[in-house]
């Protein structure tokens, strides 16, 4: 992984058990691709569902947002401000997704995000999540978010 990609992941405002980015594979002005491997003992499998672990849709959506919006936004800002996140928090503003197949523990999710627009600080992307190994489509949809200063959050 390139130094810039590693730096972006290092600067992400999340920490376990809510950090859902392992690797950024590629990025350019229009798109980003990254992966997250679902661990066997993720906290949410204990209740979703007891004895039958299935990845919650909201978690898949979160993986898509962390890679496809937050990492991507940091990448797009990396030329102008390498410390893109200092004093700022990413705010998830909308999502409209469809699920096509379930995701289970120990599968690796591969997220591909394409920019629809990035204007006035709002990033909107078309994002797909596939099972990296079987190539099966898990989820697809449009997500958007923006960065706000911590002190602006009420």
């Amino acid at each position, binding site marked *: 992984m390139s130094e810039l990609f590693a730096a972006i992941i290092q600067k992400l405002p999340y920490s376990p058990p809510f950090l859902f980015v392992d690797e950024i594979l590629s990025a350019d002005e229009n798109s980003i691709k990254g992966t997250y491997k679902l661990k066997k003992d993720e906290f949410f499998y204990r209740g979703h569902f007891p004895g039958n672990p299935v990845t919650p849709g909201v978690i898949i959506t979160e993986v898509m947002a962390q890679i496809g919006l937050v990492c991507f936004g940091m990448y797009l800002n990396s030329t102008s401000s390498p410390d893109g996140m200092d004093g700022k928090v990413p*705010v998830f*503003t*909308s999502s409209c997704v469809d699920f096509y197949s379930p995701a289970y523990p120990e599968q690796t999710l591969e997220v591909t995000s394409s920019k629809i627009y990035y*204007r*006035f600080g*709002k990033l909107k992307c078309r994002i797909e999540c596939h099972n990296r190994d079987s190539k099966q489509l898990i989820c697809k949809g449009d997500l958007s*978010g*923006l960065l706000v200063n911590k002190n602006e959050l009420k």
Partner: protein
Amino acid sequence: MTKDEIKAEIKGVIEPYVIQKELLDNLSDEIQLIGDLKINSAHVVDIVLDIEEKYDITIDDESINKMNTIGEAIEVILEKMKKD
């Protein structure tokens, strides 16, 4: 285009983003998009992009910050239409 014509059109553009539709009944120039109509700031971006497309104009960062009220939005649109 007159101010009133633009106002009628803007009403159509913002309507999908306003939850309480009755707030659109008396759309005076002083009405604030965020404060009065309760539009969230992310949707203001969508509204501005819709306006750009509708009037074939480009709104820059400085202009969006001047579009706090219906009246101000109309002013910006008229100004940009003159320029472009």
